[in-house]
């Protein structure tokens, strides 16, 4: 569990940037001799979390960074949802903030890439089961070179992250927190075989 102070609002301590830049200089010098290194090996995520939801849609957030050269995340997957997209939040024609799939994926440079409510995020489009606060969800990010970066994110209740989805159908991902009937589900978890029960697309 990392305790460093980093804010999804883009407010990053000066010392952190300096430290990352320092590392990167070293990494780029040695890069040519390790050209076959998988991109996923250089990626890390901090403060990952996913919004709780009873059903439907949800979103995952965190701070992605790389200790090497710039890499691009081209897709994501999770057992919690058979359909997951890399989203950005943009102003629509009417000025309303909308979410949509991000062309070209997530570019993770040496400086952090922040996935946060109101900004870029991993969009879970069809939950296979409720996401309960305090559970852990596994994610896999596929890089341009095909390598895969895996991480776990705890589920948290969160009232924000309600932008309208600018996809085939306009839906609101507003999701009541997984309250009320939480106790009815006992020790239900979503790891492993949860995706086998996914509905046909």
């Amino acid at each position, binding site marked *: 569990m990392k305790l460093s102070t980093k804010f999804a609002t883009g407010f990053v301590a000066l010392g952190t940037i300096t430290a990352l830049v320092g590392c990167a200089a070293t990494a780029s010098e040695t890069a040519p001799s390790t050209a076959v290194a998988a991109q996923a090996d250089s990626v890390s995520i901090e403060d990952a979390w996913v919004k709780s939801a009873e059903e439907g849609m949800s979103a995952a957030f965190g701070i992605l960074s790389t200790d090497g050269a710039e890499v691009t995340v081209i897709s994501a997957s999770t057992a919690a949802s058979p359909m997951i997209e890399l989203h950005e939040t943009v102003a629509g024609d009417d000025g309303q903030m909308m979410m949509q799939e991000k062309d070209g994926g997530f570019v993770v440079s040496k400086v952090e890439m922040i996935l946060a409510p109101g900004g870029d995020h991993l969009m879970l489009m069809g939950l296979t089961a409720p996401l309960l*606060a305090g*559970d852990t969800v596994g994610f896999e990010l596929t890089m341009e070179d095909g390598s895969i970066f895996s991480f776990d994110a705890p589920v*948290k*209740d969160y009232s*924000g992250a309600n932008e309208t989805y600018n996809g085939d159908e306009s839906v609101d991902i507003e999701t009541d927190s997984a309250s009320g009937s*939480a106790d009815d589900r006992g020790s239900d978890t979503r790891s492993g075989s949860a995706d086998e029960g996914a509905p046909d697309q």
Partner: protein
Amino acid sequence: MTQSDTNDALPGLNRRRFLWGGAATGVGAATAALIGSSWRDASSTAAAGHAEDARSAIHGALTVPFYGARQAGIDTPAQSHTVITAVDLVQVQTAEQVVRLMRLLTDDAARLTQGAAALADPEPELAIVPARLTVTFGFGERIVRLAGDNSAPSWLRPLPAFSIDDLDEDQCGGDLLIHVASEDLVTVSHAQRMLLKDTRSFGQVRWSTEGFRRAFGSEEASVTMRNLFGQVDGTANPRLGSDDLETVVWDSSASPAWLFNGTSMVIRKIAMDLDTWDELDRPGREESVGRYLTNGAPLTGHNEKDEPDFEKTTPLGFPVIAEFAHTRRARSSVPGEKIFRRAYNYNTTPTGGPVSDAGLLFLSYQADVDRQFVPLQQRLDELDLLNQWTTPIGSAVFAIPPGCAEGGFIGDSLFAI
């Protein structure tokens, strides 16, 4: 202590600048830890004659370690502000749910106490001034029993009824205690909100109460607090770091194994009738407690820490410290009937008539409630002149689980997964 030794070699002025200035720019965990353990040193230096400098000193970056064998916020020097909340975990029926909740709350507390935003914190800027923030968790009987019928210590239940009580059920009991304290009330409010938001899926707030002491730095940390009656309150308390406190609070030899490095907490919300107290003149006030108001010295002595002489009589043959005096009644001749108190004042909005709704949040820590707290409270219940102006209106007992290591959660010794 190594840190004090090092610090003593530096002029006070420079030391403070280094410590506080360093923390403000985020030098790192090592510096934060140093600050955490040396704050008393620094504050007493300030009070000793650097008033000008103390005024400009910034202490918001001071931290108290979260991870450790024991939870912080018990034998931590009491911070200026606290908010104590009991949550009824009405949706929680299984140990697995408790684990999910406590993982969330532990992570929140670990981050916030170190001056970092909680996960999914919409107001991260409010998290960067910990000001000695501590978060301490306790479990009520129902939650402990979710780990197994034999897991609850025998004392984990409501206190026996006392004749002086006028308890409001809405200010008693609860499944989960969340005790937040800091030198900064904004920090307390933010931490409380972040923690309580993570309890929403598991239950609802049963009661919550705020308490305060003197502001940080307004007097030396070693000064015994005064309650709103103006009395020096807690003179006989075991000193922080003493063997006495170790035995009183942390002797877990008679407790279930999971409570090793844990303890118990009794919370009594005691209303103080300041209006009728006003009718009592100074001699009467001093007689009610058996201590002088000026410095808390027993009526048989001169200094606060002087041992009361309960045998001493007046020329007329009456005891100097009256039979009904609080000091006499609170004292036990039975070894072990002793508690560690960490009280806070409260003062809320009065309703309908009186100009005050004030009192004391009496927080008492002891290894065994039945053996240590109950006999003492029974003696005070039978006879204590102070009862005339004080009324317990809230009461709760919690088991305080041990601390946890990074990666663990508060309660993991009970709900081992």
